[in-house]
């Protein structure tokens, strides 16, 4: 059985007399124990998908199932099977302590008090916040608060976790910590669906990525395949001490491209150019180099990032790229 299965989901909204198609017939499924990311620009329909799965929104048509339970017909069972983290600062009660919050939510999940006491202690220890259990949530840093939010989502030991932009607003260190926690949760065998704005986050965490744009899924694959199958130009740089103009001319003709030359302090010449297709380019270059007796010090081929894939598929550039957090 699939952990999450979505078939032809459609959701429209009417806002200020304007019709919005938030989800335009999307389908995908997630295998148990995998991390799946929904990657998309603002307004793509990520949160709408999450909310339908969390039974906060009804779809106009189509179907969604969590571990076989239909989100419309079996909504209580769906909510029992799920741990949900929604975006925003206020998904805990700020005027209650960490422990009080977790105890309250345990009751909302119908957990028995003895079990929930143990579970809370286990989670607080696991996420290293046990020493803050009597602190008011309002006094916690955003990073620690987000860890408590994850504890809350795990209270009932759900099989599936959905996270809507879990690292939004965290500083680089806190968000790295949180990503590690997400990996640990996966290691416990849980299925995770997350949405994110951050390419490298999707790249680092996910087994599968779906790129969603304007309510449609434009691409869905493993991060490696998404990048591999991307048909874009790659930059190639060759370094050598004895380039000849014949060699450079030969390269220009072979690859139909402009070749940029540069000399660095050591007098080493570096050339770079764009490749349309990767295929056997490297072996061709080496062959040409040996024909011209060129001693190649280094060849570097730039691999596309998930961001390149994203721009290629959606025509949009991400504004929020947290470079320093890498």
């Amino acid at each position, binding site marked *: 059985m699939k952990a999450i299965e979505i078939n032809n989901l459609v959701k429209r*909204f009417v*806002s200020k007399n304007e019709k919005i198609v938030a989800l335009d017939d999307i389908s995908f499924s997630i295998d148990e124990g995998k991390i799946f990311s929904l990657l998309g620009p603002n307004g793509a329909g990520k949160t*709408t998908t999450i*909310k339908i799965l*969390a*039974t*906060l*929104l*009804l779809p106009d048509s189509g179907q969604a199932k969590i571990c076989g339970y239909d989100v419309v017909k079996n909504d*209580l*069972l769906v*909510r*029992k099977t*799920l741990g*949900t983290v*929604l975006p*925003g*600062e*206020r*998904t*805990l*009660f700020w*005027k*209650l302590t960490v422990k*009080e919050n977790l*105890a*309250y*939510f345990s*009751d*909302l*999940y*119908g957990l028995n008090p003895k079990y929930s006491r143990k579970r809370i202690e286990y989670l607080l220890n696991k996420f290293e916040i046990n020493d803050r259990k009597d602190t008011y949530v309002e006094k916690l840093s955003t990073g620690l608060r987000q860890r408590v939010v994850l504890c809350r989502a795990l209270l009932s030991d759900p099989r599936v976790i959905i996270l809507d932009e879990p690292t939004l607003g965290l500083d680089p260190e806190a968000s790295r910590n949180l990503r590690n926690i997400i990996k640990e949760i996966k290691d416990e065998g849980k299925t995770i669906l997350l949405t994110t704005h951050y390419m490298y986050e999707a790249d680092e965490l996910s087994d599968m990525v779906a790129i969603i744009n304007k309510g449609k899924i434009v691409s869905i694959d493993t991060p490696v395949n998404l990048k591999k199958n991307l048909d874009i130009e790659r930059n190639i740089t060759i370094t050598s001490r004895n380039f000849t103009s014949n060699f450079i001319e030969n390269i220009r003709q072979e690859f139909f491209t402009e070749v940029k030359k540069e000399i660095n302090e050591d007098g080493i010449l570096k050339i770079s150019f764009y490749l349309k297709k990767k295929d056997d380019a490297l072996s061709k270059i080496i062959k040409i180099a040996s024909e011209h007796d060129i001693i190649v010090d280094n060849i570097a081929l730039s691999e596309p990032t998930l961001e390149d894939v994203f721009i290629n598929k959606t025509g949009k550039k991400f504004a929020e790229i947290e470079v320093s957090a890498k």
Partner: protein
Amino acid sequence: MKKIKIFFQASFATAKKDIISILRYKTWFISVLVWPILMPYTFVFLAKGLAGPTNEGIDNFARLSGTTDYSSFIILGNLTWMFLNMIMWDGGLKLNSSRRIGILDTLWTAPSPRLAYVFGSAISSIVINFSPIVISTAFFSMVKIISFKANIFDLLIYTLSILPFIIGFLFIFSSLTLRSKEANLVVHAVRVILSILCGLQLPIGVLPLFLQKISLSIPITLYMNCIRDSIIKGQGISYHINSLIYILTIGFITFIASIVVFKLTEKKVKNKGLISGY
């Protein structure tokens, strides 16, 4: 069965959480203890003023209200009204503010029935506001402003009987706050209308005849009469058995209807995505 168990577990947990939060604010005893004692005084003094130096106003009051004991009449009206008001509105206003803050959708991701949060608020309102009412009634009896002649057991029966109506009212109001952002406006308007219609601060005898008829069809009015007659006149429950049956019947109907209204509203909210304030 399981659904009922989780409903009550979630309701009591919500009530407990609300009570903890209220007691954490150091000013709670002002609204909960000082206020019920000070507020009624203002009305007593006002009434004293209106009665005139030779108390000629009292006869008129007695003709309208059926008692010359205007202090008891007014104080009981006010205390009861404060008590009912808390239960009628608090849960709905909390629902609205939790939506505004952005925690409501997270609450709704838990597998408890969503009405449990509102019901839990009603429980906390009852718990928080019941003892102050008792304390201030005791206080006014001690200082001989109220002449307390009631059987306490009767008062409890009346109060339990009005709860289905009041909680049903709360469920309907909560549904409304989910649909519209003007919750506060509704509270103010309805509160004033009810306080006049139900004879809470003035005898309904001052109202035009047709309004008196409407007034007597509202369970709150009948409840108010039962409470006053028991405390002021010492009338037993047998005097009011018809009122009691009426209060319970209307209460039951309102309660069931309110659950249906809430369920329908929940569906509407899920359809339009109203929960996160769109």
